[in-house]
């Protein structure tokens, strides 16, 4: 990812922070982390046999309707899921074995301008795209009114969530 110094040879840190509108695919067991998702959505894809995984930190639902998706496929639910899956298969993942876990998409505010909720739109879009591609969602924790931090360990496929509730308990999906 460009964020980590754009000159070749700069090493990747671990865990890798997956910022908003980014996605990262790892075939070397790195831990991927997205902090403080509110209405944004985290989609993790994993192929257990090849231990190849990817995490996307999605901001908006519909990339096919937006020119910006060419430069930033990670920003949109549909294009992020497709681009991530393609990269995983290129790295050796088996398409038919890839499973998805999804977290985030809260609706923190009840503003009139938000309509049905900005988080909800991302959840619907991600589910639709995964369904279209035949990737099963094996676990999800979406919606509600709390922020979440997601940690995805690509060596084991462990996908855990921390919320800001009193005890800051970590749950594994």
């Amino acid at each position: 990812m460009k964020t980590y110094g754009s000159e070749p040879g700069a090493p990747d840190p671990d865990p890798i922070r997956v910022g908003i509108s980014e996605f990262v695919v790892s075939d070397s067991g790195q831990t991927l982390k997205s902090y403080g998702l509110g209405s944004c959505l985290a989609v993790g894809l994993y192929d257990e046999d090849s231990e190849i995984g990817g995490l996307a930190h999605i901001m908006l639902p519909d990339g096919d309707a937006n020119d910006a998706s060419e430069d930033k496929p990670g920003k949109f639910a549909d294009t992020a899921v497709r681009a991530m899956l393609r990269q995983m298969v290129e790295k050796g993942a088996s398409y038919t074995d890839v499973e998805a876990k999804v977290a985030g998409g809260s609706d923190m505010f009840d503003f009139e301008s938000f309509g049905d909720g900005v988080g909800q739109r991302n959840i619907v879009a991600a589910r639709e795209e995964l369904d279209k591609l035949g990737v099963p969602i094996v676990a999800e924790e979406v919606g509600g009114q709390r922020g979440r931090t997601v940690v995805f360990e690509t060596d084991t496929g462990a996908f855990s969530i921390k919320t800001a509730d009193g005890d800051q308990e970590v749950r594994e999906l």
Partner: protein
Amino acid sequence: MKLDVNALGTFYQMAQEGAGLAAGRLTRLTGVDTRVGVTKLNFMRGSDIRAELADESKKVGVRVELSGGLGGHAVIVFDRASAIRLVETLQPTIDDAPSLPEGPDDAFDEMNRSTITEVGQIMNSGFIDGWADVLGTAIDVATPEFVEGDTAEAFLADVDTTPGADDLALLFQSQIEAIDTEIEFRYYLFPEHDAMAEVLERQGADGESGIEYDKLAGFDRLAQRGADEVASNVTMLTGIDTSVEIRRLNFVPLEAMPEEIDDEQLVGVAFEFDGTPSGYLLFLFDESSAREIVRAMVPNEPDDEFGQMGQSAIKELGNIMASGFLDGWANVLDTTIDHSPPEYIHDMGAAVIDPVVIQLGENQEFAFVFDTVVQAADREFDCNIYAIPDEADLERAINDLPMNRIEDAPTKAAIEEIETDP
């Protein structure tokens, strides 16, 4: 000349490319892993830039003069401690490494100065190469100059392109985080007025849309009036004596906003506002400041500061602050701006702002963010205010602003009736 979003987007891209190249070069030189942190375009008054440089901490910088495709000055400024760490990191690679200054007032010796200058210059050229790439031009760099001190003068003396106290300058701010080592720095670019005009001309889309460069002062007027009203309303309601510490107008990609906010838990109040402009307004406190507010406002201190009583106290304060802030804006713009009832939040920093980012992200890529910090002198009270107007609305509002109104818009301190929750 006009500032339009295309041109500002180009400036942003320059800042980001530059930071990427500089980070990569720093990593190759020192072997320290680096990560490009938040990159921002700031509109800052000359007096605020000077205040930032004169914050009493000792700093070390490397300054260069630029000419060619972009004329002006660029300065990289390290905290003294960061500069020392940088030299320490590099020392094992230097034969006969010099000793570092021991006391806080000891000067860097000649060898240390030249090490810092070398690193500074390598990073400078990273930034400048990045800008040249984006602008498709060549930028010439003069011999680097080592500067040191705890006053603005130390860094800005002889720089003829720095803005006057009340002039607004477009400033690049980049941050490179060195992983496992704390090396912090700020990066300033002071372009020549004519060079800026030329770049804006070349990058602007049609010369018709955009904000008149000379009306930039209108932005600052908005920021100032809004912030002053907030501080005086807080003082009136809570008795806590507050003042406006920082006031900036940032131009950032929406995605950068959640990254910029602390990962820690924040307590806040959010509003949507409607008028010219419409947008979103957030008041965010760290937890200890929020506790302090509850104690100041609730007569019998509750067991749980963030229970029902505490929440409604914070919402009430937020409501007063929002009315003050938006009244300040409405006065400058000679319009009315309505706001929603307060929404209370207590959550991770990034999660608090991303719903707004998502909502605005449907129609715009960048946002002007009025970023203000209000602090109390005698106790912990840190409030970050983020006002994020709809881009098209803001452009219209600023362009409709007569110049004389920018100069002398009246302010009134008004407290509206508080909306109570059903």
